[in-house]
């Protein structure tokens, strides 16, 4: 098998694995049980999507897609931070409300 063919096959398999991973993460997202778990699941899906983009880049040979992957990593980090912040402020509000 030529290197190119192996690479094709490997990247396709990789895409499949990543998709399965995303499915599992979505299950976690649905099952929760807490908000933190769901945020984690979304973060996980973001990271898997970074991998997926890489996989597509390998599959097609358009290595320029790597920038998309980087950017996604950047913003999905931002999302997780924002969501964590949301959790935090909810905690703060709950304690405030409990005091009252």
């Amino acid at each position, binding site marked *: 098998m030529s290197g190119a063919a192996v690479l094709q096959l490997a990247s*396709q398999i990789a*895409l*499949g694995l990543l*998709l399965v991973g*995303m*499915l599992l993460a*979505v299950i976690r*997202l*649905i099952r*929760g049980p807490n*908000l933190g778990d*769901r*945020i984690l*699941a*979304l973060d996980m*899906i*973001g990271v898997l*999507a970074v991998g*997926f*983009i890489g996989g*597509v880049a390998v599959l097609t040979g*358009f290595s*320029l*897609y790597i*920038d*998309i992957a980087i*950017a*996604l990593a950047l*913003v*999905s980090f*931002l*999302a997780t931070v*924002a*969501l964590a*912040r*949301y959790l935090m*402020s*909810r905690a703060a*509000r709950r304690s*405030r*409300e409990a005091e*009252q």
Partner: protein
Amino acid sequence: MEATPAIAIALVVLLPFVAAALAPLVHRLVGDLAGWVVALVPVAGFIALWGLLGRVSDGEIITIAWPWAPSWGLELSFLVDGLSLTFALTIAGIGAFILLYSGAYLKGHKQGRFLGFLLAFMGAMQGLVLADNLVALYLFWELTSVASFLLIGFDHTRQAARRAAIQALLVTGFGGLALLAAGVTIYTISGGWDLSAAGDLKGHLAYPLLVGLVLLAAFTKSAQLPFHFWLPNAMEAPTPVSAYLHSATMVQGGVYLVARMTPHLGGEAIWNLTLMAFGGATLLWGAIAALRQTDLKQLLAQTTLASLGLLMLLLGAGTELAVTAAVLYFIAHALYKAGLFLVAGAIDHGTGTRDITMLGGLRDPMTLSFIGTIMASAAMFGLPPLIGFFAKEEMYAALAIGQFESLLALAALVLGNALLGAIGLALLIKPFMGQLLPTPIEPHEAPVAMLAGPLVMGVLGIFLGFVPTLAGQLAVAPATSAILGVPVETHLKFGVDLLGPAFWLSVATWVLAIGLFLRLDLARSLLRRTATAIGWSFDIGFDWVYFGIVRVAGAVTRLLHHGRLELYLFLVFVLLVVAAIGPLWLLDGLPRGPQTLDLRFYEWGLVGLAVLGVVTVVYARSRLFAILALGVQGLAVALLYLVFGAPDLSFTQFMVEILSVVILALVMIRLDLDTADRRPLEDWARDGGVALLGGVAVTMLLWAVIEGPFDLRLSTFFNAHSVPIAHGHNVVNVILVDFRGLDTLGEISVVMTAGIAILALIRGARRQKPVEVAPVEPGPQPKRRAARKAVA
């Protein structure tokens, strides 16, 4: 000094409007003398018109046209013939006295507005009778209604005045629309806007429609049954208005219209019989209703109804004699009725009451008024040699020969004239003869400005009676010719034909009138009891309709504008379904559907992920959960873009989708989470149903689109020229910044503007802490959740 026709028309039609605009200024400058000053306007008009009289009585038809809207074939064209000149002279002549009278009548009041309205009305009325262009005719027609609205509502703080004004406006406005429709119909048939060029319209398919529309217009304006009720109510207006608009001029607009249209529409049975039937009915109705009244103005208003009916009846009869009678009667009526109204005003002014049963013996304190009334009542009673007598003779002569309808009409005429005669007697005898009765004000004579009109008009009525041939030559015959569309020579001469049936019918009328006058009180109480027993009137009917419309409007508006956004949206989506699939279905354009499903496994995987994400968004119980699921579908869509060869899209979608989640999270920090979808079950099913249909419908449409051929030439062009000319390898980006850079310029403007808007919103929030209380509106308030305060 003889003015050219153009200058005459300008003086007659235009000058009053200019004067109207200046009237408040004039009043400010000269005070209570304003009436004298502005009366010069109709005087000038009268003189100018008088200069044309010779040419017109020689049979000439003068037309003047100014350019107006050439691109739509419109000219501001006027036509002076016997008919229009007769009306125009009447309007100008009486108008002068009315303005004079008004100045005195409203002494010490803010007259500026009032005189302005009167002048504007005068210009409009002159325009109405002189216009040849159908659009101009309608324009002036409506302007008379508008002026009338303002004048009836002059005493605007009283609801009765407002009601009368609105009633008059709506009834005449309703008829006006019919006139507009008729005018446009005539234009469509004849191809021109000038009525004089319309020719004979009787053969056309639309003839019955035209007759209906024209008569509707005429009947509303001239207060024919069943649209008569507004006219008595219009007596809410100050007396000069009643005298001028609501007896001598504006209400004659309908009569004028019928006369003007007779050459084009008249002669057919449908035209003649309708006019005679409605005219006759109105004549009797008004005359009988007048018997019931004790208020001088009401009494006069009802007799005006009768006279208008009488005129319609005569025009409906349509013979040369009948039309001549109509013209004569029009002149006579204008003179005596305006005079009577003015005297009524003088009495009101001089005694403080208009109730005929409270008045008596005024002949000594108000001698001049008494003299004016004698002349007017005599004309109304139809005594020779006043012009009213000739009118009556003429009409009896016209109808005494002929078929059943004519005889029926004749009977109505005799009865009507007798009733009017009785009232004429009552108007003279009740207030002026007998003993002086106590009145709210010590009776005193009105100033000369108020009495000039009645006296001069009365004298004129007598004078014309003595020179009927002259009147016939100058006005009556030319007017009759214009109405009949064929030249007519006058046959009027001074004298009484004692052998003709007309005279004996006159005698019968007088006898009947005197008899009725003697039993007036009985008749009045009888009629009043009847009216009470019926308990309904056309006037009440107007209220039913008016408030019915208001009520329906309220109900419909509350039904449609309920304020529930979800229902507004629901409707929109239902329409979306209909729009997307309806035409496709009706025109047999439904798609074949997919033939193969050639997706690669990872494409299927992404589709599945997207669907899973979407379903999760929908079913997520907590909102943050839903937001996270939203992120999932967004990522799936972005990845789909990637595998379909759209990396830029994918890039953007990632960023935007995630940033949406970020902003949602930032905002959600401040929102108390609410967990459940609060929809009741039936809503759930309903919404789900329309959602499903919407999805299916748009999918079908999209399928139908992609199953058709596709032209890629735009993209072929972009692909070909991106690198060589635009120096860019990424075609999508080149489209964004070069080929279609303007889209992007708009797009970034949207982004920037969104920034401004959002900041304005957030600043608003900062200003408004603590939470402001919503303005209290009637109706039940939604329950408020107290916990929310802590959040904000």
